[in-house]
């Protein structure tokens, strides 16, 4: 395997020339793989990999977390969430701290688990926290349909799902960012296909390749991007073709569209982006936790000194942040990018790049 990898790395060195090249990945799993396998240490020095807003937990705004925390403090509710959300700080608490205070918070591995718990225990209302991109949204849509079919009345979803295309357009239009290529998210693309990337390639001259998650996948994708950039022929390519089809997964998209509709959505660090979120349609309103249990939350300011917005855009790296690894650490995160294990700052913290290895 090492020899094959070295061959790809050598080709990248040949293809990427001497001009600076900036490639952005927008998937937390890619961010982690790049760090875990030490890919940066193998690439030419003029080729820079920057991390974009690829971690759904990181881009979830504080006021949504605050809303969830209010739902958690009710006596009649049980909050069900994926594990990566549990330590995320709201403006004054986290689900973990509410759990320690005796409120009911359960970590689940699938939204179906939350529905099953609701069916087993009719006395309490089970709220699943729907945070994620197009990868998780279809599964949540399926569970909402299942809940309706089974006439479950004690289950709902607090929905903060986001969709990738409009956010990518926003990044592409931002003159500060200046990326030449995009390592496109494998799982998200399996659902949405490559239409959005074709648009980016055509209108913004950004090279796009949908990548798998093995280190070899990522390096081949980097090579494909370098070739596109060298020839100045930007298109939407698929390296991860064993999973991703150009048209995406039409069944999953149809399911998503039955239950959700596009809405304007706030991205932590990027601000409000029109039509970049998913809201539960009115026909399914009784499964919308924030409709059933309205909460009032104040908008919280960005913590002072935090440069997560610039990090999410790939303008700065965590090492340029004054809080990084000092006040802001994975066990006491301040900024969005440190809270999830797939956030850029958490990845930098865990797998710091080794500058010189003998």
């Amino acid at each position, binding site marked *: 395997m*090492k020899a094959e990898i070295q061959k790809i790395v050598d080709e990248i060195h040949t293809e990427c020339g001497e001009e600076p090249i900036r490639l952005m990945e927008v998937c937390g799993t890619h961010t982690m793989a790049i760090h875990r396998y030490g890919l940066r240490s193998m690439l030419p020095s003029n080729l820079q990999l920057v991390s974009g807003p690829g971690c759904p937990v990181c881009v979830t705004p504080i006021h949504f977390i605050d809303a969830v925390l209010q739902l958690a403090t009710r006596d009649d509710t049980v909050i069900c969430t994926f594990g990566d959300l549990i330590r995320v700080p709201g403006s004054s608490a986290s689900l973990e701290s509410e759990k320690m205070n005796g409120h009911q918070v359960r970590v689940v591995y699938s939204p179906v688990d939350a529905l099953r718990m609701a069916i087993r225990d009719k006395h309490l209302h089970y709220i699943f926290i729907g945070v994620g991109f197009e990868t998780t949204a279809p599964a949540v849509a399926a569970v909402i349909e299942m809940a309706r079919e089974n006439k479950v009345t004690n289950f709902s979803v607090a929905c903060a799902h986001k969709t990738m295309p409009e956010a990518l357009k926003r990044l592409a239009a931002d003159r500060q960012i200046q990326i030449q290529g995009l390592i496109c998210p494998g799982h998200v693309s399996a659902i949405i296909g490559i239409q959005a990337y074709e648009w980016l390639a055509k209108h913004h001259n950004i090279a796009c390749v949908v990548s798998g998650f093995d*280190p070899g996948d990522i390096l081949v994708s980097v090579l494909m991007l370098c070739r596109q950039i060298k020839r100045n022929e930007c298109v939407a390519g698929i390296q991860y073709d064993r999973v991703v089809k150009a048209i995406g997964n039409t069944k999953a998209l149809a399911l998503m569209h039955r239950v959700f509709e596009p809405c304007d959505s706030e991205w932590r660090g990027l601000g409000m982006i029109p039509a970049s979120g998913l809201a539960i349609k009115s026909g399914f309103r009784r499964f919308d936790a924030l409709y059933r249990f309205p909460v009032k939350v104040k908008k919280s300011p960005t913590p002072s000194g935090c440069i997560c917005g610039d990090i999410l855009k790939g303008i700065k790296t965590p090492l340029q942040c004054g809080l990084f690894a000092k006040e802001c650490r994975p066990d006491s995160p301040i900024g969005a990018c440190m809270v999830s294990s797939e956030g850029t700052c958490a990845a930098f913290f865990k797998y710091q790049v080794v500058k010189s*290895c003998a």
Partner: protein
Amino acid sequence: MKNNTKIRKSHGSGGQQSHDLLENVFIPHFRNSYLSDLEDSAVLEGWNGNIAFTTDSYVVDPLQFPGGDIGKLAVSGTINDLAVRGAKPLYLTAGFILEEGLEISVLDNIVRSMAETSKQSGVKIVAGDTKVVSRGSADKLFINTAGIGSVPENLKLGAKYIEPGDEIIINGNIGDHGLAVLLAREDFGLITDIESDVNPLSSLIRKVLDADVKLHAMRDPTRGGLASTLNEIAQLRSVDMYIDEDHIPISDTVESVCQLLGLDPFSIANEGKALFFVAPDDCGRLLQILGSQPLGVHAARIGTVRAGNGQVVLNTRIGGNRLIDMPLGELLPRIC
């Protein structure tokens, strides 16, 4: 009648019921003259050299897991802490905190397991204590063990003897214990063959010491796994450790489950593993000795100590480099 099968507060009172528990559960399993004398402390004989002394508490949940139970863990853990210092483990004490309502048969099984494990290593459990707390004040059963062993006076073994150039060897696969316990506790819907590696290492280590290899230090990578132990020593000695991911022994199942659950196998606890820091010219011989033992069949050289400033660098399996950092926070609670 039914109540006689459960632990009651009176079992910790020091009165008749306490005595019954001692006579019916502890003494039959741990049987030795030190215990059956029922004195307030054991007077231990026959010392050569220095004394190694250690203690550890065990709160693992669940009490039984694939590959072992809290009893085997409580004995092995303390024996291993003595053995990696080069000590011959000799005597243990055992303190029990029992939750009211615990089935006595559960306690009996665990005490039997402790007796078997200590016998296997030629170690005697010579003193003990039992306390019972109200239901809800403890989770079923906690154990504290303390152990002492004898160390030859001239033995030079410990982190301070580690030098740049030393090779780093481990006696087998990493990550088995932490994952076995986690999978036994949480309902992930995964069925695997992962078993805890919990085992006393004293016999294996004795073979190594008897062969007189140029061994500089040993450590058991328990909580915090390989990542924690390597970082601890690297920082303590201000040396770098260069680790080859390719050479780290790990089962395919552990690797897949870690990927699936997003866990880092380098940070997961082991309970039957030791890291050996050995002079390079004796590395081959040490691997041969370990490989000939049942608890060392997967032994491998995983890296090298180099002059540096306390970093642990991983050469990844594809040829990249990154740091292995000290694990943060409690990754997997109550695994030992």
